[in-house]
């Protein structure tokens, strides 16, 4: 099984340690991982802003780079969801589309494909899960709070494999943090208000860290925490899962 690692643009530039942790963890689990060069962005930023046609060449480029792998794995639920849900439509009649079926968020991949049951790390901290919207409602990483379906959380399942970690979740367990891509700069006041409340509800759990499968949400919350001098740390789920590697 050959895996193509997709490290989305903002993770590449701002959170390279998340990419590193993903790579190390997959390697540790015996997966054959490749990181093809010349990958950039999935195209979600412009698409959500209303310019999805500008994402088409990026989608085609993404296809060219990743189509040969068995799975494409990314440490970013929202980007994975964008590829999965939108590429077939964007590329229709323009380019073959294989990556939609192969695309997986790393947590989804660890949980559903590798079915990881044991991890070596220790992380003796209390962490609050940030259930990001696209992770929950598009990739089904956990059961959305609105639906009457059996409760599950793949993130919680994975974190429970790490020794020492205490996992909590905030009130309004999967309410949006207000990032929303360009929403964050088009509606900055609402975005920051949503983020501030989200941050406070995470802090109220007594957690030392906010963790989640989407560094984009975490980047937004971290920006607010820094501005307001709020004492909480941020860490991607995969960094906790790779603790000690």
């Amino acid at each position, binding site marked *: 099984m050959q895996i193509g690692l997709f*490290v989305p*643009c903002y*993770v*590449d*530039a*701002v*959170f390279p340690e998340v*990419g*590193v942790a993903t790579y190390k963890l997959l390697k540790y689990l015996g997966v054959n991982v490749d*990181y093809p*060069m*010349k*990958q*950039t962005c999935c*195209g979600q930023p*412009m*698409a*959500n*802003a*209303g*310019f*999805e046609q*500008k*994402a088409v*060449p*990026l989608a085609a*480029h993404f296809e060219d780079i990743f189509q040969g792998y068995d799975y494409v794995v990314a440490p970013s639920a929202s980007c994975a969801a964008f590829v999965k849900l939108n590429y077939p439509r964007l590329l229709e009649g323009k380019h073959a589309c294989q990556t939609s079926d192969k695309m997986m968020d790393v947590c989804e991949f660890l949980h559903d494909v590798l079915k990881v049951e044991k991890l070596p790390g220790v992380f003796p901290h209390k962490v609050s899960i940030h259930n990001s*919207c*696209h992770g929950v*409602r598009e990739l089904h990483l956990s059961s*959305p709070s*609105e*639906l*009457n*379906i059996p409760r599950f959380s793949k993130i919680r399942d994975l974190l429970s494999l790490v020794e020492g970690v205490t996992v909590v979740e905030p009130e309004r367990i*999967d*309410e*949006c943090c*207000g990032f*929303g891509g360009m*929403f*964050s*700069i*088009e*509606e*900055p*006041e*609402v*975005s*920051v*208000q*949503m*983020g*501030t*409340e989200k941050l406070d509800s995470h802090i109220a759990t007594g957690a030392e860290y906010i963790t989640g499968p989407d560094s984009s949400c975490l*980047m937004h919350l*971290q*920006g*607010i925490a820094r*501005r307001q001098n709020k004492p909480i740390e941020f860490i991607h789920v995969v960094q906790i899962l790779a603790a000690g590697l």
Partner: protein
Amino acid sequence: MSTKHTKAASAFLLNKSRAQFLNQSIWYVREKRDKVAMQLAEWEELRELSSSIKCHTVTHLDTYLEQFASQAETNGVIVHWAKDANEHNKIVYDILQQHGAKKLVKSKSMLTEECHLNNYLINKGIDVVETDLGERILQLMQVAPSHIVMPAIHLKRQQVGKLFEDKLGSEPGNSDPTYLTRVARLHLRNEFMTADAGLTGANFGVAATGDVVVCTNEGNADMSTSLPPLHIVSMGIEKVIPDYRSLAVFTRLLARSATGQPSTTYTSHFRKARPGCEMHIVLVDNGRSDILANPQHWETLKCLRCGACMNTCPVYRRSGGYSYTYFIPGPIGINLGMLRSPRAYSDNVSACSLCCSCDNVCPAKINLSEQIYSWRQGLDAIHKADPMKKIISSGLKYLYGHPTLYYMGLKYAPLINRLPRNILYNRLNAWGKGRELPTFARKSFSEMWKKGIVR
């Protein structure tokens, strides 16, 4: 880079306690909805059925409307057809004229809001009295509803107390909700007793029987129609459903979704006029039959008008109903506004973080967020796209389309970290309004990979 919604939301949020009050009040309704939804094992099955029934009905609307109208006529009801708001208003006025009616009592109807019926009638000398408590409060204040189910949700009790003191002569300083409701009861009882006609909306029109079904908690639709000799129903053509078996599905979903109640207090079936009285139904199109032709948006016609999408919407709860430029706010309102006129109502399309929560609460399973995403794609073609967003998107397309340039960008990005604050946090930096910028890594992942550090 800001729409009318952005600006109105920003102004709304300046009053922190009011903003918090609204968010809490409405979230409380979402929680009540969750609680009753989780109590029914068949909840998701009901939503799926409701969606399927609506898909079927809306795509066979001609058949069901004809059946409905013919049944109603068999029952002695007079059925009118109105192509648009003006025709609807004129029909209602003509009926009132024919009966010499001067005072009209109304139960809540978003359709009459859509048609601006009240002003039309008031200008012609009709005394129009809203009888839902929330609607009556707003009518006395001369403002519009801020929510389709809880129209006065944005008001504090003190505001209502002051209003009633001025308009209805209630005790000065008394803003106890029970007291104020009693004052309204007495006031409205007199209006019901002296009304010449009653007008209701319709939650459902049952094709098989001709019944108009109206759901209220206050009983005001029933009071409005039990006393005056004339009952007029304003009904959107999409409100027709096949039969009682379908109705059972919808009545189980409606109140649970709207307010978290297992049922509204009153679910009234109006089939015939009272002896010696008249009942009229005005079937209103006003753009609905055009929506049917829109492959991406016809499913908005499935809407039950329960308001659940507003209650769950994190943007609605933090910006309030008045921040939207269309009279129906929230996710469904964004879509309905665009269907009414993309040029006039494109300012609401920014009011969505694409969190998709609305899709999950909708009892008719309308793909609300996908539709909002799709409207955004069309803004540029009608010259309503934000120029700054367009520049950023074009820039990103260019940057990401040229990996060499992208790698160069990554290399120099860390320099941004060291720029002085007054340059970074200028007025064009919307991110910086309430957030620190992220710190670019000294070495990007791709650079580390190239240098073999990762492996």
